[in-house]
């Protein structure tokens, strides 16, 4: 039986594994309960009068809120503002004190050809080919997705978005967000943690696309959860992993 529902969100009482690949660590959560929202966000966070970069070089001024000019891309990261949110400039930012909360969001961007990438923290390029030799992103031929992107927001971790429109058409944009607001508990049973990380226990695995700034995410994880996550071991090193996990768990202040 799948651990996610028809929207791609983790079902209650199922496990969510969050992997920070560059640091080779993971966190395992149990979703205790959740709220699911379907939000039609009216236009990408692009404001009338601001300047966007053009694929062919140069710049262009945005003619109206949420409108993405032809052949343009956002040079700087964006977040999604929402009035009344904890941080009104970023509706998915939650403070480190909210350690029992996680947002799991599927962004369905319109038109579906819009390029999208995420940056953690904002304005830090994450995608690179041949180690750090060639950077990717919405302004490059690789390093982006089109139309859909999935993001897990941990407390106090700032995530930015960049967008690109590589057609000759100035478009009206939108973002259908399927939002899971999870109330979670950190799983601290070494056996369950190991089984979930290596794929022996049913769990939904989300891998943070942080290939350059793992230290930032690690520092936030430590502030929020009191440790830097569980190192990832291969399946054949179970006893070594379990011992390490026991040691880590014994030191966590709760």
């Amino acid at each position, binding site marked *: 039986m799948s651990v996610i529902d028809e929207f791609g969100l983790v079902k209650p009482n199922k496990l969510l594994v969050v992997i920070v690949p560059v640091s080779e660590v993971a966190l395992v959560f149990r979703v205790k309960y959740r709220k699911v929202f379907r939000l039609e966000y009216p236009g990408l966070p692009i404001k009338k009068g601001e300047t966007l970069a053009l694929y062919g070089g140069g710049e262009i001024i945005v003619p109206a809120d949420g409108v993405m000019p032809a*052949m343009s891309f956002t040079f700087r990261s964006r977040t999604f503002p929402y009035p009344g949110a904890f941080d009104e400039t970023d509706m998915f930012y939650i403070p480190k004190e909210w350690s029992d909360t996680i947002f799991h969001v599927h962004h369905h961007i*319109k038109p579906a*050809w819009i390029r999208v990438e995420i940056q953690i923290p904002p304005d830090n390029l994450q995608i690179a080919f041949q180690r750090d030799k060639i950077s990717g992103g919405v302004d490059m*031929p690789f390093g982006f*997705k*089109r139309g859909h992107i999935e993001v897990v927001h941990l407390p106090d971790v700032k995530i930015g978005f960049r967008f690109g429109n590589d*057609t000759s*058409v100035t478009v009206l944009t939108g973002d259908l967000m399927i939002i899971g607001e999870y109330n979670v508990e950190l799983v601290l049973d070494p056996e369950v943690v190991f089984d979930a990380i290596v794929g022996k226990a049913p769990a939904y695995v989300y891998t943070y696309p942080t290939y350059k700034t793992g230290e930032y995410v690690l520092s936030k994880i430590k502030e929020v959860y009191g440790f830097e996550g569980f190192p990832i071991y291969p399946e054949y090193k179970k006893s070594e992993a379990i011992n390490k996990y026991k040691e880590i768990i014994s030191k966590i202040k709760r």
Partner: protein
Amino acid sequence: MARQLLTIIASTDGQNTSGQCKLYSSLFAVPADFIVVPLGMKLRIWQKRMTGAVDTEFKIEYTNDITPQFSGQEATWTTISVDKYLSSQGEVNIGLSKPIEVFGRTGREAIRVTWSQSTAGFATLELEVEITDED
């Protein structure tokens, strides 16, 4: 995988007997002159519907390099579809069992629609279009 369906309306200006159609869609903030196929995606035309009151020929044209157009020059256009509408008033629907497909191999490929008429008048070509990165 990304997939966007949209209806594009190409219309004559009612004053000239030939020209390049402005392209309209509910997703477009302003009418477009041509549509560049995004890199790695495909533009598919599944259905065409012509309406109007005058004898009109619509052509769908393709270029594999739109770059000259951005510097005020003319790209090299090739006709990939011709629809001649000969009624005095009415409409014609053409459903395509196999779509007209244009690949965004370099991100410089584009399509446009042109018209020609014996007498100037209003006519439209409605295109049911899919832009997708699926095979």
